[in-house]
């Protein structure tokens, strides 16, 4: 009796694992299969593998300005991430290692940024960007992206810096190192794991960000990947394999990176949540 019950539970476990595998995994297989089908092949077999490989979708996607979108996204995300890590770490260093009256208040001010929906600032950021003549330019995206990445960066870096033994910094000070020097040559090298965590989190945020780029960007030459995918979808609505291919190409870099650095990506992506 006990054996039967155990077997049933195990069966249930495997069964639900398989169902979830289908729900979460199959859409990716579907994307891969469909991107190698032409329209008639898609309609004659919706879910199976392609009978013969068709590369026309890839040609169609690359005929668009996809490479421009790609380069724009890469540029905006990289600059924003590097800047937000540097700026955020500087502030965290002061909050974590130097004593001053308002340190708690400053920390709280940054933390509030994680609790309040950024969408609240969409309209003013649109008008601010217009005032500084950065509308419709990828450079106009960098400022907001850095700003939105600061709260999580400050949160993670501050808690990391607090763990570093004070004695290391004190001995550097006795050796005559300036605060900036010990920040650059002692603190930052010690914090590689924290930096990679927030780096991945912020990079994916900027890479995938949609509403602000939708509002601030108009011209093709300035568009980022999410806008590009959407534009391609708008033009080719009936060409399902074509649109699927655009999704595949736009997502592939992140997926490849995930397969190489799975642990870091999972830690980075879930770190945005661990804010207590």
């Amino acid at each position, binding site marked *: 009796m006990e054996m039967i019950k155990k077997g049933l539970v195990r069966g249930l*476990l495997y069964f639900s694992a398989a169902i979830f595998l289908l729900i979460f995994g199959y859409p990716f297989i579907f994307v891969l299969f469909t991107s190698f089908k032409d329209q008639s092949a898609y309609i004659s077999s919706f879910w199976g593998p392609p009978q013969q490989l068709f590369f026309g979708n890839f040609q169609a996607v690359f005929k668009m300005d996809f490479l421009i979108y790609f380069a724009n996204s890469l540029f905006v995300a990289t600059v924003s991430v590097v800047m937000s890590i540097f700026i955020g770490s500087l502030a965290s260093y002061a909050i974590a290692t130097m004593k001053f009256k308002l340190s708690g208040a400053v920390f709280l001010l940054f933390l509030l940024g994680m609790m309040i929906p950024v969408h609240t600032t969409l309209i003013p950021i649109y008008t601010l960007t217009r005032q500084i003549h950065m509308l419709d330019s990828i450079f106009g995206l960098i400022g907001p992206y850095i700003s939105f990445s600061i709260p999580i960066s400050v949160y993670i870096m501050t808690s990391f810096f607090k763990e570093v033994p004070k004695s290391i910094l004190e001995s550097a000070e006795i050796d005559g190192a300036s605060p900036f020097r010990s920040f650059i040559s002692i603190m930052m090298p010690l914090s590689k794991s924290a930096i990679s965590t927030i780096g991945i989190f912020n990079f994916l945020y900027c890479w995938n960000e949609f509403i602000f780029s939708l509002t601030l960007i108009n011209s093709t030459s300035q568009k980022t990947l999410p806008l590009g995918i959407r534009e391609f979808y708008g033009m080719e609505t009936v060409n399902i394999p074509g649109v699927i291919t655009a999704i595949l190409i736009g997502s592939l870099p992140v997926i490849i990176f995930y397969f190489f650095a799975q642990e870091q990506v999972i830690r980075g992506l879930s770190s945005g949540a661990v804010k207590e």
Partner: protein
Amino acid sequence: MKNNDMAFPLDVNSSLMRKRRMRRNRIVIFLFLLPALLVYGFYNVYGIIRTFIYSTMKWSGISPQMDFIGLGNYEKLVKDVHVWHALGNNLILVAVSIVFQLSFGLMLAVIINSNIHGRKFLRTIYFMPMLLSTVATGILWVLMFDPYYGLVNQLLGVVGLESLQQAWLGQPNTAMGTVLFVVCWQFIPQYMILISAGMANISEDVYEAATIDGANKFQQFRSITLPLLAPTLRISAVLALVGSLKYFDLVYVMTGGGPDGVTDVLATYMYKKGFVESDLGYGSTIATFMFMVSLIMVVIFQVVTRKKEEN
């Protein structure tokens, strides 16, 4: 200040030096904080203040003509049925996120933490929806739910359920449910990882002791795993709450708030009013409303769950 009290009167020199050092320290601290405060102050803090100011203006955003109308926009907001409908959708999102995303996240966490074969592979695959941008996720599922060429209707046809084939996103009664399904698909993996991390923190010894006492797996789950996961579940719920209140991308991409405003949430309605209908004043009022609702909900939630944990 304390340092001065402690200094001996004779030690004037060192007290002066100390003062100078403190002033220098203050400058150093300020310089370290300055870049972050400047950027964050400009976009986030000043941005929110400006939202408040705009919310009291009649302003299209195109012409420089800007008139102060006090609470005029707020009066309009209170009477605007679309706002309340959108808020209702946000609240449905909150409920669905907390109930379904957390419980399915928990189920997946249990699976990848069990001794099932290939659990590493399962975790790798289960996590993948997190990697897609919301735009990619939204368009992918719009195509899956396409009435004629979408996979979902095709599958229904194959298993003989033609009667269920429908325009999932085009009908008022199915559109919101379809969007909610995709929201869950996108975010369940995040809760799986969070809860799984919480499970990893529970010490093996507790389970061993329970096994010796003759508790079976279900009893262990109910009386050890779940109570010890409470803090993790609380954080996850706050996260689901904040996330649901600011939801925009997926709704915008999948339905644009349609059909006929049925799937609008506050953020898409704000976008529609502010940018499509060029009424940045009223759009800002909706944004302020969103801000208030989020703040109130987070505070209420914190108070309620803290009290429960104390009991």
